[in-house]
């Protein structure tokens, strides 16, 4: 019989003897992982959606007058002085008229009596991907608004602002729920291991007296914590996946979910959550061993 066989058998005994408290801990860990992963899934999808939306982000700078070639060069220089940008398009009054007419399609007749220069000239600025944070965009738009000859700057401020505050709120929820649930799971595992240790003092003392090594006595408790983390996270993530599938199948079609292209976690994130759960539960177990297992 080797070390691992003996240790695994001892772990099996521990689990059998304290299965009720082990089961409660397992449920707590599963639930903690489920709640945390649920918020995290929404968060990652929101961030993904924000990324996709920001691909279409452009700042429209309406100008008082149509700039000449020299003025265009100056404006281009001024804009790139602030930061590099993806693209800069100058849209003349005539171009603006054509675009608008195109957008109106069959209703373009309404423009028949309008002069072709009634729309203001503008600059369409596509910022760099790296400049997509809300505060950066705001700062950039303020800069653009301060350029000479600028009437106003538009980039869907309200929508961007709301989305920004929503994702910020979600970040706080994820961080808070994550921290609280991590603490709960770790504490529960530590407490269960502590109960197991307390309930088996006589056996632990005997094991010590008959020559069990410290690792022979300690390892089963560590494995218990590890198993709690592994099983709890697998069940928690499986439950979330079930929920995700159910929501996907019941709310499929044109709606909010399709707008955001909801995706489940990629394998790397799943593995990280499982690994994180294992590490935290093992840590809980380890602290109890250090504190209460006197060998």
């Amino acid at each position, binding site marked *: 019989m080797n070390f691992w*066989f003996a240790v695994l058998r001892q772990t099996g005994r521990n689990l059998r003897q304290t299965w009720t408290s082990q089961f409660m801990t397992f449920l707590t860990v599963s639930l903690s992982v489920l709640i945390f992963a649920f918020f995290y899934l929404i968060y990652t999808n929101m961030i993904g959606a924000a990324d996709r939306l920001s691909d279409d982000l452009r700042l429209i700078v309406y100008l008082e007058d149509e700039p000449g070639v020299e003025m265009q060069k100056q404006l281009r220089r001024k804009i790139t002085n602030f930061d590099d940008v993806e693209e800069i398009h100058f849209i003349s009054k005539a171009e603006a008229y054509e675009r608008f007419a195109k957008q109106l399609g069959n209703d373009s007749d309404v423009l028949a009596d309008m002069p072709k220069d009634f729309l203001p000239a503008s600059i369409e600025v596509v910022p760099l991907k790296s400049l997509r944070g809300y505060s950066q965009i705001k700062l950039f738009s303020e800069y653009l608004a301060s350029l000479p000859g600028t009437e106003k700057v538009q980039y869907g401020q309200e929508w961007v602002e709301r989305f920004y505050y929503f994702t910020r709120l979600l970040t706080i929820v994820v961080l808070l729920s994550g921290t609280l649930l991590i603490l709960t799971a770790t504490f529960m595992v530590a407490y269960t291991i502590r109960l197991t240790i307390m309930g088996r003092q006589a056996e632990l003392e005997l094991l010590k007296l008959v020559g*069990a090594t410290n690792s022979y006595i300690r390892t089963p408790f560590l494995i218990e914590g590890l198993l709690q983390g592994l099983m709890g996270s697998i069940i928690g993530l499986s439950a979330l996946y079930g929920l995700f599938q159910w929501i996907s199948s019941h709310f499929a079609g044109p709606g909010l979910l399709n707008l955001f292209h909801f995706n489940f976690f990629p394998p790397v994130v799943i593995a990280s959550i499982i690994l994180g759960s294992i590490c935290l539960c093992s840590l809980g177990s380890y602290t109890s061993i250090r504190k209460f297992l006197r060998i």
Partner: protein
Amino acid sequence: MIEMIKVGRTYDPDITALSDISFSVETGEMFFLIGRSGAGKTTLLKLICNMETPSNGLIEVAGYNINKLKGKDLAHLRQRIGVAYQDFKLLNDRTVAENIAISMEVSYKKPRAIKNRVRELLDQLQLVDKHDTLTGELSRGEQQRVALARAVANSPRLILVDEPTGNLDASTTKQVMELLTRSNKAGATIVIATHDESIYQQSNHRIMELSNGRISSLTRGGKA
């Protein structure tokens, strides 16, 4: 096998359990420790197996200063010492077989070997029918035999036995002594703390008497 030089043990607030104990036990010897209750026999056995530490003096077991051993070294030495405690230290929610097996499991003996050894010992102590009985359900005499079986199960080099026949009738006492004698003949050093005269008077082994925590005599049995 055992060397004790000027060993003493005091407990708070100033109770002297043992004082100035010096003696040696040779490898392969069977050695009896006698004396009235409270004379210090159990304390002496606890010191030998490092369950307690001496207040002063030196204790060497198998050439090692047992009080300086730690971790794996101490664990390995303990695997070579079998102890049958006066209070048995059995796990009452485990079966007889599981209790006996525990001392072999910690030395990673093969499951088949453990199973065979357990059966062999239960057979020798006439406890075969109790194989799957929880030790909490056994009589005191049966528990005592299980504790002894656990002590000898791992074929240790040193066996310490505290009052092995305290709860036994004459015929069971004979079985127990036969088991210990067999282990002794197989090379194990055996120290028996007892006040049952019947088991040491007719032997030719050394007998050390303790009185008030001191050695009062060191003689050979009546057969010598």
